[in-house]
């Protein structure tokens, strides 16, 4: 964003930074580069859906937004403060304003659902036990779980119930930014839509910004007011940006880019042949390495 003297709107935008800013983010694990030069600004109240095929770095992007993955380049800022330059104590405190819904719910196996949902409250507040119980019950009601699950351990619950319990836990501290990692993956179509409904309800809470990482087009159309599509780095032509689409769900549906059309319509196209060729190249490279070593 560039501020100019003649543009008061830009100046005021500069004065109030976006809720979350991802700036020229790059992430690599060893020799493998996953994200390159990703920049996203999120205003308070936005509902962003990050689309992309498996392995394109969506989850890594989401985890970078909360500081769970340390980027190798660029910066992530929450209300103008860099997560990378923050002390552990400040980052831990800042995370109370986040809610993270994990793909597999990531409930603590050793705790009951009640203890799981109450965990952030016990960790960060001095609320008395009776009040914590009341909040826990209302959260469980909100996500449509029966109160009888409160005494159960996560292993006793179905996938959909675990996801909803994970959402209840993420909402415990009334977060400003809720991050969802593949919220509908592995669920039946009805339960998937229940989760979509819940994401919409959470959106309606005051001061809630949502980021949903998914490859489910149904979720994207239902919950997003902005969609970003990431493309795997190794499939890009040199110099191409990794974000191949940034717009509304309606614009996504109208897009004529063949890569986007292929994803939106869920067509394999020539992908099987491409995968076979890539595999053959990888095998050849591996054989070459072995020969060299021998």
């Amino acid at each position, binding site marked *: 964003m560039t501020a100019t003297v003649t543009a008061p709107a830009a100046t005021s935008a500069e004065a109030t930074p976006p809720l979350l800013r991802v700036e020229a983010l790059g992430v690599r694990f*060893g020799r493998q580069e996953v994200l390159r030069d990703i920049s996203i600004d999120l205003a308070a109240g936005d509902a962003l859906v990050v689309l992309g095929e498996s392995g394109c770095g969506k989850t890594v992007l989401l985890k970078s937004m909360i500081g769970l993955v340390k980027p190798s380049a660029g910066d992530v800022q929450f209300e103008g403060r860099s997560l990378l330059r923050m002390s552990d104590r400040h980052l*831990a405190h800042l*995370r109370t304003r986040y809610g*993270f819904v*994990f793909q597999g719910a*990531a409930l603590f196996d050793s705790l009951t659902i009640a203890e799981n949902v109450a*965990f*952030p409250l016990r960790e960060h507040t001095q609320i008395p036990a009776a009040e914590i119980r009341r909040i826990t019950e209302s959260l469980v009601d909100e996500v449509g779980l029966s109160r009888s699950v409160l005494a159960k351990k996560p292993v006793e619950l179905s996938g959909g119930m675990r996801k909803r319990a994970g959402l209840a836990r993420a909402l415990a501290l009334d977060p400003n930014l809720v991050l969802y990692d593949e919220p509908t993956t592995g669920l039946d179509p009805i339960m998937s839509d229940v989760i979509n409904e819940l994401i919409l309800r959470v959106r309606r809470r005051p001061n809630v910004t949502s980021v949903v990482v998914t490859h489910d087009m149904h979720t994207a159309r239902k919950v997003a007011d902005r969609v970003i599509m990431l493309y795997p780095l190794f499939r890009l032509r040199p110099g191409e940006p990794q974000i191949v689409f940034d717009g509304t769900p309606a614009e996504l549906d109208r897009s004529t880019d063949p890569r986007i059309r292929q994803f939106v319509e869920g067509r394999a196209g020539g992908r099987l042949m491409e995968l076979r060729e890539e595999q053959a190249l990888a095998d050849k490279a591996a054989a070459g390495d072995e020969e060299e070593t021998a």
Partner: protein
Amino acid sequence: MATAAPVPSASTGLTGWLAGQVANLGAGAIDLVAGIGDVAIFALRTVGWIFARPQRRDVLIPNFYRIGVMSLPVVALTGLFIGMVLAVQSYAQFKALGLETRLGSVINLSLVRELGPVLAATMLAGRVGSAMAAELGTMRVTEQIDALESMGANPIYYLVVPRFLGCLILIPSLTVMADFMGVLGGYFYSHVLLGIDHHHYWANSREYVDVFDFLMGVFKSLFFGSAIALVSCHHGFHCEHGAEGVGRAATNAFVHSFVLILVLDLFLGIWLNNVHDFFRPEGPRRLL
């Protein structure tokens, strides 16, 4: 853990291959140093969190129970047998010299100085260390450790410190149990089965085994317990994906803990002997 990328050989042929190998030797060394540094930082952060915030009783007690109480029977059993085995192995040699009444001294000295602490630590590494690595590894793979962090809770405080304290505080008790059962086992075999006079057996034991020997074993065990907890939790925290990753974390936790126990045992043994000589300059006592 920082991983140094292997250097691809610039040219082909024997020279290129040799150059590649030499260059990768450096990468291996860097990996090793980085790994040790990683565990050291992990250890420092763990110690820091012990003092930063008190632990909750309802987290500590179950950990202590699993680490200490549940390990007691197996430690007692191995202690008992190793005491008897020592009697079996030493008897013939001592009898040939006509010194079988001194059997008590060699059995009990070996037990309290070496075998008691090392066996208790080995059992702890096998029973508790690999289980801790597998448990934390599963938590890593199922994103439970990420979940803790995402809620602003420190995983080292919640997961490592209770396990570390459990191992550190309870391994001396396990060592004493191994010592005690070993002494009983050695006496039982020597007196009941080999017929050695029990007065001489104990009189010799008292003469050659003193409080320092016993305390030396217990003191060493504190280092073993810390090493087991740190190495095992570190392997769990850095577990790779999938069932294979969890299995590997559990195996590596035991193997690395065991190697570390023996290395620590050697260096602590040398150091403690020097401490002993400093306080008792009359020199080592002679068994024979």
